C-alpha cells in the first residue's frame, strides 16, 4: 500500500497555493494534516498529480478571539485547539467532542480545515460547526467569501469549497449562555460514529434556539429543521422526544457494513435522546 507518485509543492503564501490549485484544475490536492488524505493515497483511491502542502501558510494558523467570536485558522491541529486556553470556557461543545475524535496521534496532526474540506459524513467536526452556527471563510482566485455552515455541507464528500479554493478559517459566534449536548454511538473509543449528534440550545427550560446536528447517519452532517421545531418550546422529556422523533424521517439514512439504514435511524433517535438527557440532567 505505497502511495502513487506525485509532485510535492510547499507554497509560502496563500496566493501561491491558490495559483497552484487553479493551474492544475482538479489534479492538485491540498495537504493539510494528511490523516485522511494519506490513507486514501496509500490505498490508491486518491492519486493527485500534485500535493500542495499548506503547512507553511501562516495565514492559516492561529486562534483569535474577539468579544463576539472565535476565529480558528484552517491549519489549526485538533491538538492545538484542545490546548487553547479558552477552549472550555468559550467552546465547551468542542472541548467535549475532542476526546472522541480518533486518537491522540491523529489529533496531533489532523486539522480543522482538513476535516471540514473532506466533510466525511461520520466525522464530528462538520456537525460541531453546524451546531455552533459557524461560518467558513474561503479564499480562491476571485478573493475571499464566507459560507455559513448550513450551506457548506452539500453532499457525500461534497462542500461549497471549490477545487481552486482553500478554507482559510472558521468563525464561531460566542454564546456564553448557550447549553450544549454531544453524544455519539461507537463500538470502540475513537471510532467513526455509527450515529452522533451535537446540540446547541439557547435555553433548556423550555428548549429553544435549538441547533441539532447529526453525523454518521447520512451522506453528510446535517440538521433537521422539522425536528428542531418539534422540540422547540418543549421540556425535552421522553414524551416530547417521542413526539418529535418522526421528524427524523426527513433524513436519508445510510446503511453500511456495520449497520443498516433502519438501525441507523434507530441510533439517531437513541443518540438524540441520550444527548438531551445529559443536557437536562
Amino acid at each position, binding site marked *: *500500500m*505505497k*502511495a*502513487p*507518485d506525485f509532485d510535492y509543492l510547499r507554497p509560502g503564501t496563500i496566493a501561491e497555493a491558490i495559483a497552484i490549485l487553479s493551474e492544475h484544475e482538479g489534479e492538485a490536492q491540498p495537504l493539510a494534516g494528511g490523516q485522511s488524505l494519506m490513507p486514501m493515497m496509500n*490505498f*490508491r483511491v486518491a492519486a493527485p498529480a500534485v500535493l500542495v502542502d499548506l503547512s507553511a501558510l501562516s495565514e492559516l494558523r492561529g486562534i483569535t478571539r474577539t468579544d463576539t467570536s472565535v476565529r480558528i485558522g484552517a491549519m489549526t491541529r485538533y491538538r492545538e485547539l484542545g490546548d487553547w486556553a479558552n477552549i472550555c470556557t468559550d467552546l465547551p461543545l468542542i472541548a467535549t467532542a475532542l476526546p472522541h475524535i480518533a486518537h491522540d496521534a491523529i489529533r496531533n496532526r489532523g486539522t480543522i480545515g482538513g476535516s471540514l474540506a473532506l466533510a466525511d459524513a461520520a466525522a464530528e467536526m462538520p456537525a460541531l460547526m453546524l451546531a455552533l452556527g459557524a461560518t467558513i471563510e474561503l479564499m480562491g482566485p476571485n478573493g475571499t467569501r464566507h459560507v455559513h455552515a448550513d450551506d457548506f455541507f452539500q453532499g457525500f464528500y461534497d462542500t461549497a469549497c471549490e477545487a481552486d479554493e482553500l478554507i482559510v478559517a472558521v468563525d464561531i459566534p460566542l454564546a456564553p449562555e448557550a447549553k450544549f449536548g454531544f453524544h455519539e*454511538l461507537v*463500538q*470502540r*473509543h*475513537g471510532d*467513526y460514529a*455509527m450515529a452522533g449528534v451535537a446540540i446547541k440550545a439557547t435555553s433548556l427550560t423550555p428548549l429553544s434556539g435549538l441547533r441539532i446536528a447529526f453525523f454518521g447517519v447520512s451522506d453528510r452532517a446535517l440538521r433537521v429543521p422539522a425536528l428542531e421545531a418539534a422540540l422547540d418550546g418543549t421540556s425535552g422529556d421522553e414524551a416530547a422526544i417521542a413526539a418529535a422523533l418522526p421528524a427524523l424521517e426527513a433524513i436519508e439514512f445510510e446503511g453500511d*457494513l*456495520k*449497520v*443498516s439504514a*433502519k*438501525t441507523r435511524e*434507530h*441510533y439517531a433517535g*437513541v443518540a438524540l435522546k441520550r444527548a438531551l438527557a445529559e443536557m437536562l440532567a
Partner: protein
Amino acid sequence: MTGPATIFDKPNTYIGQPTPRADAARLLQGRGRFVDDLQLPRMVHAAFFRSPHAHARILSIGTTAARAAPGVVAVYTGAELAEHVTPYVGVLTHLAGLRSAPQHPIAVDVARWQGEPLVMVIAQTRAQAEDACELIEADLEELPPAVDAEAALTADAPVIHADFGSNLAWERKVDVGHIDNAFAAPDVTIVEREFRFGRHTGVTLESRGTVCDFDPSEQTLTMHYSGQAPHMMQVILSRHIGVAEENVRVISNDVGGSFGIKIHTYGDEIAAAAAAKLLKRPVKFIADRMESFMTDIHARDHVVKARMGISAEGSIVGIDFHDLTGVGPYSMYPRTSAIECNQVLNLTGAPYALENYRAHGQVVFQNKNMMCQYRAVGHPIAMAVADGLLEDAARAIGMDPVEVRRRNLMRDDSYPRASASGMKLDDLSHQKALEKLVEIMDYDALRADQIKMREKGVYRGIGFVSMVEVTNPSPMFYGIGGAHIASMDGATVRLDAAGALHVSSSITEQGQGTNAILGQIAAGVFGVPIERVKVTTGDTATVPYGGGTWASRGAGIGGEAMLQAAHALKTQVLDVAGVMLQSPVAALDIRDGAVVDAETGAERITLDALARTVYYRGNELPSDLKPELIATRHYRVTDFPFVFTNGAMAAHVEVDTETGFVKVLHFWAVEDCGRVINPMLVDEQVRGGVVQGIGGALYEECLYSPEGQLLNTSMADYIVPMASEMPEITVAHIETPTKTSVLGAKGAGEAGTGGAPAALLNAVNDALSPLNTSIWQMPMTPERILKALGKV
C-alpha cells in the same frame, strides 16, 4: 514415564516461576529482528496483481507495459512460474475422502478467489512494483462464483472443480449410542438451535512476509520466515521449487504474531522464493494490510444445526448436530481445510459424560479466500455449540447452568476414559475447575447483582463454558496422514568453556515465551543461573529437527525434550566431576553454576573450571574418560493422539438494550494445563487468547458480497478488540500434570480463544433471557442483538 523427582523440588528450579523474559529487552529497545527489518545486498521487492473477481477464467495477461515500468526487474505470470514451481494438493489420507485440486502459487488458467495472485512483479522498490501492477492488462472472463456455503451443494450451485462434480470437499459422520431413542424418551426436553459463526481472520500486527535468497554458487535457498514451522517450510520449498532439502535453510527470528495464520502455504511467499532462485538475488515480499485481509487464511465459517436432549433431573442425554463449513476453493496445503470441521466433530460435548452423540460435518469449497487452522481450531465452535445448548437447556428446565454442569461433567476421578466422540482423555479436572471458578468469581454475588440491576432495567448476564483443549499432538494429527510435519521435537544442550549453557530447540517463538521457558527448564534442570543460558530457536541449519510451535505443543513437547537433554547433560557432567573430584556421583549435584556437595551444598568445582579442564587440559583427565559436554534428546507423544487440557471460564456482561452494545464487565478463566513452567506467561496467553475470542464473539467478521468480493479490507472496516473496551481477566490455575512426560506440561496457548466465545454467547443470552429472546449468531453485533430484541 518416570523421572527424578528432584528435578522439580530443588531450589532455584525456575520451573513454576514467573521469570521475566530475556527476549523482552531487545524488543523494548527497538532491536527486534523481524523479516521486514532485513536489508540484503541487491534485494528487490515483490508485489502482486491479484484477481479482482471471485471466479474468472484467465484469457490473457499483458505484461509489456509492466515490464517497461521504472525499476521493474522481472514479471511472472502463473504460466511462467509453473515451469519452475510444482503445484500442491492439500489432502491427507487420514481424512478419508478429502479431495482438493492441484494449486499453483500464482493462478494459471482460472482465478478462484478475489485476491488470488495472477502476476508477480519484481522491482527495485515496493512502490515501483505496485506502480507496475497497475499496468498489468488482464483479460478475465468472469465465471459464476460459489459464495453461499448453504447453497454450495444444491444442483444449481456453480461447481468450482468440475471433475469433482460437486463442491463437497469432505464429510464425516459420527454416530454413537442411540440418539433418536434417547431424544424420544418421555421426560426429555429437547432444545434445538441454529448456530452461525462468522468467518474471520487473525490480523497479526506484523503482516505475512518473507525475504528469500538464492546462492547459485552453492545452490542454496534461504527463506527468512515469519512463521511457526520452519522445518515444514523447508520441505515444502524443497519439494516444489526443486532444491535439495539440505540446501534449503529456513530461518525464523522475531515473528510479530502468528496464531496459526503463518503456518500455511501462501502462493505469494512460494512465488517470492521461486523468484529468488530465478533471479539469483534476495527477493522481499511483505503483504500489506489489504493483502492480509484478502489472503491470510480465514477460519470459523460454520452453520451448525444442533439439538441437545436433557432430562428433568438435568442429565444431558445426547447431542446431535450437523455442521456445514465453507472453506476456500482449495483445501490448504499441507494441513488441509478439513481439520477445523474434524475438531468440531471430535470436541463438541467432550467435557461431558454423554452416551449418545451424533454429528455430521460437511466441508464445502467456496470462491472465497483460503481457509485453514487459526488459533483454537474448531474449539470456539465446538464449545459454543455444546455449552450454548447446555445453558439453553438449563433455562428450559429451570435449572442453574452451573448445577447442570455439576451433574454432567466427567468426574475428576473417572480417568482415563474417552469422550462420546472417541477422544482419549486423562488427567483432567473439570469438576475442580468449575468449583474454583465459581469461588473466584463469587457467583452468588453476581446473581444477586443481576437481580438488582434488572429491577433498574439494566440487563447483565453471566455465561460459562467448560472446555477441553487439544494440546501436545502425536503423529495422529498430521504425520499419519502423509504430511511432512514432525511430531517429534528435539533439544540440544551444550556446556561451553565459560560455564554457560547453549541450548537449541526445534520449537519456535512468536512471543508466547518459547525461548523463556526453554531457558527456565534448561537452567532449572541442569543447575545454572538463567542468565547463563543462551537459547537458539527457529533456524533449520542449527537446531534439531522438529515440528515448531502450533497446536499448543511447544511447552509440552519441546519442553520435555529440553528437560531430558538438560538432565542427560547433567548426568554427563556429574560423571566427569565424579572422576575429577574422586567422588561418588550420587554425592554431587549442580547448583547455581557449580558442582556442589549434594547434601551440604558446598561448592566443589565451578562449571567453567570443569569445562576448561575438559576442553583445554584433557591431559589432566584419565584417558579412558570420554567427557561429553553436549546432549541431545527428542520427544514425541505416544500414549495419546492428543494430550487434552481442561478449563472453566465465565463472562460477565451488560447488554445495552437500546443500542445492542455489549460491555464485557469481567472475565474469569480457570485453566488446568498440567505443570506450569511460567505462570506469568500462561496467564498472558490466556488473557490474549480470551480477548482474541471476544473479537470473534462480538466484533470480527469477513464480509463478502454476493459476487464474492471481500467488503472489509481495512482496519477501519474489520473491527478488532482495542484496549478501552476489553475487560480485566482473572486467571487461576490448577495443575494436573500429564503422565505422558516427566515435565508433565500440557499446552495453554489456545484455551482462551477456544472458550471465550461460548462464555460470551451464554452471558449475552443470560442477559437477554428476561426479554424472552436469544441470539445464536456470532459475531453478536449490535445490530443482530437489536434484531433479536425486535428493536429494528
